[in-house]
């Protein structure tokens, strides 16, 4: 009699979590993700990009720094938590690190579900957590000067919605 090992958690295979140091194509990722989840009736997604600004104090560059031993593992844990909270067919989390200019994508979250409401809530939840609790530090270069950005109160308010 032979013993079979336990199958890997389904949840692990349902999440695609990436920390990238080079630019990516959010719409291309959404297309591939949508195609990969034919059972899902709906795909909710969020793309965060570096904002173009017409202000005098236009941001010339934005830099996100991460800490290797913590950042990707915490993103993976967030993906698992999101999959436990909502009935999803799949979850995609892509986050940039490094320097970015206006128009560059920073983050993409996409959630595929049979039910619209679950897809929206999952994408919304994952974004709130990424914004307020993931291991990234942001600085902006304005007028040739780099400045570190502290978290916004708003991000904590967003997070408080999830109890």
């Amino acid at each position, binding site marked *: 009699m032979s013993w079979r090992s336990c199958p890997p958690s389904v949840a692990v295979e349902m999440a695609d979590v990436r920390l990238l140091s080079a630019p990516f194509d959010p719409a291309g990722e959404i297309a591939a993700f949508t195609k990969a989840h034919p059972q899902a009736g709906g795909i909710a997604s969020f793309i*965060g990009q570096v904002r173009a600004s017409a202000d005098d104090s236009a941001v010339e560059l934005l830099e*996100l*720094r991460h*800490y*290797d*031993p*913590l950042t990707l593992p915490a993103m993976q844990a967030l993906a698992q938590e999101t999959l436990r909270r909502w009935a999803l067919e799949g979850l995609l989390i892509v*986050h940039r690190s490094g320097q970015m200019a206006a128009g560059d994508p*920073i*983050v993409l979250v996409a959630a595929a579900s049979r039910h619209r409401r679950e897809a929206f809530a999952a994408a919304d939840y994952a*974004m709130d957590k*990424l*914004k*307020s*609790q*993931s*291991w*990234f*530090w*942001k*600085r902006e270069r304005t007028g040739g000067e780099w400045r*570190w*950005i*502290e*978290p*916004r109160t708003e991000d904590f308010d967003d997070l408080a919605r999830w109890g």
Partner: protein
Amino acid sequence: MSLKLVFLGRLEDAAGVAEREVPFAPALRDVLAGLDSELSEALSGARIKLAVNGKLVAGHDLPMLADGDELAFLPPVSGG
């Protein structure tokens, strides 16, 4: 014998570098005492978290340090 200190976010500006080696000391307070007082104070802030060898540790739960340990000082995050 040495330790590696890693400074994230605005602590990098306070330290002037992203990481640096310091002589080994078994307790965090001795490590901090060996730095200049302004940096030491910045690293001791209430909102600064600490990771030893990539694992978060609570301030009162700090293990004895070992040769070659990596200490990362983590200010509040500001992602996405």
